[in-house]
């Protein structure tokens, strides 16, 4: 009975983990984005963090060739808001094993982008959503995959500025 129990447990763990292992394609996952609290006429910072599946890399925001597709965060705020200062981390330098002389500027692993969200003086109080997307193009050492656009959204809460004492 005990052996059967352990066999069953092992089979469950193996089968349960298999889809997760198989699903590791050339994709990224955008981690939950913290809501931004801002007062009318003020600015607040936001961060967007995403994870690139192991074995793949994407071009940085400043790839070394114009032919390569840069990673870009695109945000489309409602009219009462403005986005500025999107900051991308510097890329890691790498070269393909078969092209050691050619340098690439890429991201791999976990990447965090930051930016500022400004609320207009007349911004209404309440909760809003800023829609956007992350454009990226992934490769492994031997293959590349077509550019993709991952949708994302940042929740914004506009509340009155604290009164000065």
């Amino acid at each position: 009975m005990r052996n059967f129990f352990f066999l069953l447990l092992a089979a469950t763990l193996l089968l349960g983990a298999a889809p997760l292992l198989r699903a590791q394609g050339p994709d990224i996952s955008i981690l939950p984005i913290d809501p931004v609290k801002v007062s009318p006429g003020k600015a607040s910072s936001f961060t967007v963090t995403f994870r690139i599946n192991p074995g793949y890399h994407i071009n940085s925001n400043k790839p070394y060739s114009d032919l390569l597709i840069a990673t870009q965060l695109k945000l489309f705020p409602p009219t009462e808001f403005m986005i500025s200062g999107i900051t991308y981390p510097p890329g890691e330098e790498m070269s393909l094993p078969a092209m050691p002389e050619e340098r690439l500027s890429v991201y791999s692993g976990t990447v965090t982008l930051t930016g500022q969200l400004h609320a207009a003086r007349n911004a209404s109080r309440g909760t809003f959503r800023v829609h956007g997307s992350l454009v990226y193009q992934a490769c492994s050492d031997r293959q590349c995959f077509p550019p993709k656009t991952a949708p994302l959204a940042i929740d914004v809460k506009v509340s009155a500025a604290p009164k000065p004492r």
Partner: protein
Amino acid sequence: MTEQNSIPPVSLAPPPAPADAHESRRVHRAVVVFLVVVLTIAALVFFTHLKPLQPSRMQTAAEFRGKPAPDFALTDLSGKTVHLSDYRGKAVVLNFWATWCPPCVREIPTLVEMQKQYGPQGLEIVGVAMDDDATPASIGRFAREANINYTLLIGSDKVSDLYGGVEALPTTFYIDRDGRMVERVFGAGERSDIEDNVKKALAAAGAGAQQVEHGASN
């Protein structure tokens, strides 16, 4: 023998009551039922996950081998329409690539070399540019800079679909003189592998006696 050794071991735990043993069996049974349910769900997830993962990759190279290469019509850099069937009697290396793909660009010098070396024996390398915004002018500029000496065509999703949905670049099909697929390779190949496949495509029987079969043509 010491006095300590002569003392029989004494269990401090109370002997299991019949009710406890019954409870233990019940817990065991519940755990087994739970695991069976989890196992079934995991198996279902496992098998449903197999399907959406790159359908073209689920077809093995063996399934492609010997099959007629689907005919297509694409535009070359001079604006002329080119059909795969135009190359009947020649071995064709059909290379799906893009300018934004470093492994594809890495292969180009080898393909140039192959065209030079094996062109006189009847090899035709055909590059299908899969850049979204590819135009004859943009690909032509790239081709001049890379000294490409083989045919370049402007690709389309339709043609990619004809070849099983080309998702990863480069993907290369080696087609014999009869228009049958000899090999399919995902990713950038080493020079020796590319040359081996070129030789295989050139050597395949038939030597142009038949035409390229028209699959789901343009």
